C-alpha cells in the first residue's frame, strides 16, 4: 500500500455516531464524578495515617534545620517562601504535596498517598488568627483550616488568591464572615520568583 492510498484511507475513516442524549448527559456524568470524589477533599482515612507518619519522619529530619519552638521568625518565612524546602519536597514527593505548614510547633507537611495533587504554582499564605501565627505554602485547589473552618485556596488566571469556605470568603480586597477575624496575606509564588525577597511578617 503506497503513501497516498494510506492517506486517503485514513481521511475517509469515520467516527461512530453517538446519540444527542449521550452528549446531553456526558457533562453531568463528569460533574457527578467530580462531586462524588469531593474534588478538593484530602480523601480517605488510611492515607492520612501514612501521610502523618511520613510527615512526622520528615519533621524529624527537617527539625535539625528548621525547628523553632518560638513563633516563626522572619528567617523561617524566608526559608519557606524562597523555595529550597518547597523544591526539595516537590522533588521528593512529586504530585503528593498538599501543603507545608510552619507554625509555633515547627514545620509540618501534608502529603497525599497518591500522586493526585494538581500541579500549579505554589501559593504562600501568612495567617494570624488570634495568638496563632502560621505560614502555609500550598497549591490552588487545596483545603486548609483557617478561622475555625475548612477553606479552599484558589488562584485565578492573574495569580490573585482567594480563600473560600462555609461562611468564609477572603480576597485581598474583601473579607466576609469568619474571615474578618483573621489576618491573612497571600500571594502566588511563581517559580521565577522563588528566590525573590520575602515580605516582612505580619
Amino acid at each position, binding site marked *: 500500500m503506497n503513501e497516498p492510498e494510506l492517506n486517503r*484511507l485514513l481521511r475517509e475513516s469515520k*467516527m461512530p455516531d453517538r446519540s444527542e442524549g449521550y452528549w446531553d448527559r456526558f457533562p453531568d456524568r463528569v460533574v457527578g464524578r467530580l462531586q462524588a470524589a469531593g474534588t478538593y477533599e484530602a480523601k480517605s482515612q488510611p492515607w492520612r495515617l501514612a501521610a502523618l507518619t511520613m510527615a512526622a519522619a520528615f519533621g524529624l529530619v527537617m527539625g535539625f534545620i528548621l525547628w523553632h519552638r518560638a513563633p516563626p521568625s522572619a528567617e523561617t518565612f524566608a526559608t519557606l517562601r524562597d523555595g529550597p524546602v518547597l523544591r526539595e519536597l516537590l522533588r521528593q514527593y512529586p504530585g503528593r504535596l498538599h501543603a507545608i505548614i510552619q507554625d509555633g510547633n515547627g514545620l509540618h507537611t501534608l502529603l497525599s498517598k497518591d500522586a493526585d495533587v494538581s500541579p500549579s504554582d505554589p501559593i504562600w499564605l501568612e495567617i494570624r488568627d488570634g495568638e496563632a501565627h502560621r505560614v502555609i505554602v500550598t497549591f490552588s485547589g487545596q483545603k486548609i483550616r483557617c478561622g475555625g473552618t475548612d477553606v479552599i485556596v484558589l488562584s485565578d488566571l492573574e495569580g490573585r488568591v482567594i480563600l473560600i469556605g462555609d461562611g468564609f470568603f477572603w480576597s485581598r480586597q474583601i473579607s466576609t464572615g469568619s474571615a474578618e477575624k483573621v489576618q491573612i496575606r497571600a500571594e502566588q509564588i511563581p517559580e521565577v520568583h522563588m528566590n525573590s525577597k520575602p515580605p516582612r511578617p505580619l
Partner: protein
Amino acid sequence: MVTDDEGILIARSREGDWDAFAALIRIHQRMIHSLTYRMSGSLSDSEDLAQDTFIQVYRNLGSYRGSAKFSTWLYRIALNVCIRWRQREKRRTSTDRDWAEADIHGTPSDARSDWIQEALVQLPPKQRAAVILTAFNGLTHSEAAQLLGCPERTLSWRLFAARRRLAKLLGKSNKLP
C-alpha cells in the same frame, strides 16, 4: 488565547461553578471523544478516557495560564491520559474484544472505518497519537511535536514507523471492505 465566553467559563469553573464547567465540557466534548476513540479504539473506553480527561482538566484549571489555546491545553491533557492508559492497559485482547463489540451508546461507523481503526489501535500509543494528530487533525509535524512534547525529528520518526506499520497491516489483509 481564550475566547471571552470561554475565559468567563474557566474563571467561574475555578470558583467551583459546576454549570460553568459543564458548559466548558459541552464545547469540547466531541473533540475529546474523537481523540479518545482514535486512541483507544473502543467506544466505552473512549467515554471513560474522556471523563478522566475532563476530571484532570478541572483539577488542573489552576495551572492554566492562558498562554496556549485552551483547546490545545485540553488536547494535551487528553493525549497524556490516553498514553498513560495504554501504558497501564496490558490486556490488549480485552480492548480488541471491546472495540469489536457493538457499543450500547452509539451506532457503528462503517466497516471500512472500523477496519482502519482496528489497524490504528495496533500501533504503539505514541505512534498512534502522531498519526491521529497529523492525519485526522491536520496538524503539521511541528505542531504535533509541540503538543506531544517531543522534538520534531522524533515525531517524524514515529510517523514514519507508524505509516510503515499501518501500510503493512492494512495491505496484508488485502480486503478493503
